[in-house]
């Protein structure tokens, strides 16, 4: 990663995206700099339900923070010795929630970056609308037919792509991955087999499976025949890599729960060279209107699983993390002040995590808008200083190597000037 494409183009002094503005010899040169054969991988994680960014990455340096959250504030690091767990100091102003202690070493080794006060410029406080806008990456526009990661896949078509090029761990294809490009959606790859609710080893089941494979292989119906080919290829790959039997490397231990399981299967797919490029996982339980808790409690429990899952994935992947970026997001943040039920209500800006080898970590990125009354969005929420599309676009351009991201972000003018620079 000595000279990145981005660095090269930046120093060439040319605008990156104007159609036709970049001479083709430069574009080819930029491509050539990418190490061939080593695929960059993105793992996107959606925290559904609006995670409380202010108690995840705590601005303990703000006086207002503590007074606004009398029962749920996380104590500042200096008070650690006297009063038990407290925020884990990152830079003298921000601290991690103590449940995220497993992520601190990754911040210290510059593998983890945080973009605070980021999110959607649309001020809706509806989970549905905000998730929709973030997943389609078109704030304010509901009728966008596809998701932003699917548009990335569409823009970089691979005729002979592996059925595992794009995998979503969800019960039905999430909005982020919806669209014309093929995406394998499953809750658990262990369940990805042909059995019809019966024992997959049963002889009758095997007979039916073989017959399906035969009749689809020769079918004149091209759409169904080629898709079935993918399906059976996926099934046999999963059998080959023994998806049910996996020993994480480096002593990594994934936490119990769906996120840990999803990330473990992502790790297994990557290690077995199954052709994964984009993975999507989701985790719920962040909508804490009542009894959110502080250093312990509901949010603390969710964060423990969340942080431990990310850390386990990082540890498990080891050196392969050099080609992987993990990006986390949540539809909006929560009110700066706690409510009357020791919880928080729907707010505005939030904190996003970026983890991996390509990340210039060890830093909380973004402009801090402050928490004084006049600095708050609508007098109540953390204001926005980074549009989530600029974060997505930086990942698309600097990590996934997208030349022209305009197709991924319709109606938005992507400008590298607004990139926060968290990718090397």
């Amino acid at each position, binding site marked *: 990663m000595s000279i990145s494409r981005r660095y090269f183009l930046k120093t060439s002094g040319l605008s990156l995206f104007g159609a036709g503005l970049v001479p083709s010899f430069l574009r080819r040169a930029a491509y050539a700099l990418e190490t061939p054969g080593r695929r960059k991988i993105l793992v996107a994680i959606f925290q559904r339900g609006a995670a409380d960014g202010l108690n995840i990455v705590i601005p303990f340096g703000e006086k207002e923070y503590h007074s606004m959250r009398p029962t749920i504030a996380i104590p500042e690091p200096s008070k650690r010795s006297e009063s038990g767990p407290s925020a884990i100091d990152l830079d003298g102003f921000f601290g991690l929630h103590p449940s995220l202690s497993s992520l601190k070493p990754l911040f210290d080794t510059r593998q983890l970056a945080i973009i605070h006060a980021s999110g959607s410029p649309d001020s809706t406080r509806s*989970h549905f609308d905000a998730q929709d806008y973030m997943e389609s990456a078109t704030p304010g526009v509901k*009728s966008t037919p596809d998701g932003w990661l699917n548009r990335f896949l569409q823009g970089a078509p691979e005729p002979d792509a592996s059925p595992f090029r794009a995998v979503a761990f969800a019960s039905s294809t*999430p909005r982020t991955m919806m669209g014309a490009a093929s995406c394998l959606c499953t809750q658990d790859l262990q369940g990805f087999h042909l059995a019809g609710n019966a024992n997959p080893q049963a002889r009758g089941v095997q007979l039916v499976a073989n017959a399906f494979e035969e009749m689809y292989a020769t079918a004149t119906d091209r759409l169904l025949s080629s898709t079935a080919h993918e399906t059976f290829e996926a099934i046999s790959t999963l059998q080959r890599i023994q998806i049910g039997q996996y020993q994480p490397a480096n002593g990594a231990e994934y936490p119990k729960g769906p996120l840990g399981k999803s990330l473990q299967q992502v790790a297994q797919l990557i290690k077995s060279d199954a052709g994964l490029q984009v993975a999507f996982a989701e985790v719920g339980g962040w909508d804490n209107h009542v009894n959110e808790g502080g250093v312990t409690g509901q949010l603390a429990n969710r964060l423990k699983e969340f942080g431990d899952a990310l850390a386990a994935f990082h540890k498990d992947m080891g050196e392969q993390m050099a080609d992987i970026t993990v990006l986390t997001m949540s539809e909006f943040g929560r009110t700066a002040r706690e409510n009357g039920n020791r919880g928080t209500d729907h707010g505005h800006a939030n904190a996003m995590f970026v983890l991996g080898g390509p990340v210039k970590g060890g830093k909380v990125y973004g402009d801090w808008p402050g928490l004084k009354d006049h600095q708050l969005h609508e007098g109540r929420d953390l204001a926005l200083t980074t549009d989530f599309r600029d974060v997505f676009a930086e990942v698309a351009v600097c990590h996934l190597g997208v030349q022209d991201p305009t197709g991924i972000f319709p109606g938005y003018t992507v400008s590298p000037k607004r990139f926060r620079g968290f990718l090397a």
Partner: protein
Amino acid sequence: MDSTLSPDLATWHFLSRTTFGPRPQDVEEARQAGIDQYLEVQLHPDKIDDSEVDKRIATLPTLTMNPAELMEDFPAPKQSQKQGKNQQPPKKRPTPPPAMTPDMEGAGKLMPPETRQIMEGDGPRQVIMELGREQFWRAAYSKRQLQEVMVHFWMNHFNIYAEKGVDKWLLTSFEQDTIRPNALGNFSQLLSATAQSPAMLFYLDNWLSVGPNADSNAGFAMRRTPFGFAPAPVAAKPNAERRGLNENYGRELMELHTLGVDGGYTQHDVREVARCFTGWTIDHPQQGGGFVFRPRMHDFGEKVVLGHRIGGQGGGINDGIEVLQILAAHPSTAHFISLKLCRYFISEDPPASVVNRTARTFTESQGDIPSILKTILTSHEFNSSTVFRAKVKSPFELVASSFRALDADSDAGAPLMGMIMRMGQPLFQYQAPTGYPDRASSWINSGTLLGRMNFSMALAANRIRGTQLDLQALTPSDDQQAIWDNLAQRTLCGEVSADTKAAVMKSLEEVGNAGGDRPGAFPKTSLVAALLLGSPEFQRR
């Protein structure tokens, strides 16, 4: 080669498009009456006795409750917490017999987080579950098949996401009171009904929309309610930013419901339409109230919509009504709706000739849906071998047509609905107002195709809880040729490719060689049924 279908295949083709799948008795009925007469009957659903399926549906208590009653009896667990109320058991209205109780075991982990929230506890999950059951039962067993096909078409055209706020309590009424009575009626009336439905007003935010020049503007602020933000007459606050014009409905009304994205409107028109609809809101949304026009929220200024002057003196609720009339009569609407209907009934990219003729009928009949359907269904473009099995079935259509072909029965509970979801069509769960795309490529991918094959196997082997297939009745004799003939006729009118047949016959041989019909093995009938339902041919209609 464009050629006319043989009479038998023409009947089959017609039934496979205008019903949720031909049953042997439908084929017989249509053959005897003739397609034209059969269509004529289907276009007048009120004249068809449907008491049998109505009896089933009478076992679903929520179907006869209004939104206010649903909200009262099926509150969201979280919301009663937030209000700090003690949770009291809901007042019991007639409960369904035990066999009809949703079987939720194991279904929770299959649901997306938001759905799971709804599916757990005594909350509104039962409301949405029962609406899904009603839809499935009608699709599988109603005699008013064309009406039911059109209910699905319009529900998708005017799509609403059940998980958005109070919509989970409003969707039942939307389906029953807004869509179904108009599904074979007049497009203009259907459009007006959706415009005034609380479900749509909420889904596309119009209930919040306040005119920038409304005289009451200073008197409205958004008040937090358990359901989101409601306009409430409170002292003006400078920070209440959500007060004001909301363009969502205005935009989607033109882009998705009427003109189509290239229908010739501008962003200026979107804004002007939104101004016309200010004040179209919901009376006490948190208590399940109906449509109400609130003059205090309305922008009484003059607007120009697609060149028409609207409002000013004498304006008010009529501004919105006028917009709906303009849009319903617009040539772009005639074309856009005709295109979508032809895409649904004929092929993904239907010939321009038939779309244009349909649009002409749309305009001449002023949106009379039966006339429009007749134009499509009697066209030579429809009755052509080039479009035989041109459409991939949606998962819902696949399941319903399997049931109809093999005469299966089901409580339409969570195990069956979960399979439809895993094939890519969770009912009432499509987030965007576009509705599910009517394209084969959006239904078929490696995971959903696997789901289709798994469904076929599970149904044929009687391994879906709450669902029964009478294998005995489907087995005329032990002769495998007889089993094949019977099932191939029922599922595919006997029109099966040589490859599919060869694969089925080969596996039958293998079963036979191993003495496969002993107890516990896949019986021959199950084997053939699984392979036919999961075949490439049966994925299409």
